[in-house]
């Protein structure tokens, strides 16, 4: 069974600074997808970024980028130029190719300090 581990229950960062959220996963599959979702207090889960395992290039979306280390089964999220609106719970999630379920980590609560 796949597992996703987020070892940082809480993180904080000064506004405009950079923060990295860590995520590791365990799988025996070779083809899979990894995701970072953001959940603000409104409870609405929002996809931040997605990475296909077969792609060596790290995904980027504006201020958000990932460091995908397939051999180490690591998938960290870097947020640059942190903004107050980035404050939320961040969940790392995994899905193997052909499966129909997302496996989530337990989340990291990110606080932005003005």
């Amino acid at each position, binding site marked *: 069974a796949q597992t996703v581990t*987020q070892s940082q229950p809480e993180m904080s960062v000064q506004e405009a600074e950079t923060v990295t959220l860590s995520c590791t996963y365990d799988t025996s599959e070779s083809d899979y*997808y990894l995701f970072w979702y953001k959940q603000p207090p409104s409870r609405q*889960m929002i*996809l931040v970024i997605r990475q296909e395992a077969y792609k060596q290039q790290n995904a980027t979306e504006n201020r958000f980028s990932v460091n995908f280390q397939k051999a180490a089964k690591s998938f960290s999220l870097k947020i640059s130029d942190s903004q107050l609106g980035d404050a939320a719970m961040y*969940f790392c999630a995994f899905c193997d190719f052909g499966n129909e379920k997302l496996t989530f980590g337990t989340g990291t609560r990110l606080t932005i300090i003005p």
Partner: protein
Amino acid sequence: GAGVSQSPSNKVTEKGKDVELRCDPISGHTALYWYRQSLGQGLEFLIYFQGNSAPDKSGLPSDRFSAERTGGSVSTLTIQRTQQEDSAVYLCASSSRAQYDEQYFGPGTRLTVT
């Protein structure tokens, strides 16, 4: 252009009662997912629909839980004889094709069993 909607937003029920939670996916989305988010936990997969069929019910925690989807659209998650451990936020998501396509989440239903 509406997103995924869920009703009710909050539900308080007495132990032993039955509850129904509703999800309206984005129009045209064939895939629909139910997840459960308990306090301090990540999201736990419950069930997945492709059209009106549920190929994967493996996440349903007990036979008190059931779900159906009609007309390839609205889905209802039913919990019979509710227990206190059923208290959680129940999230619904839909996507246009497969799990690795972006899932659009609803705001969830917070269920409290007293």
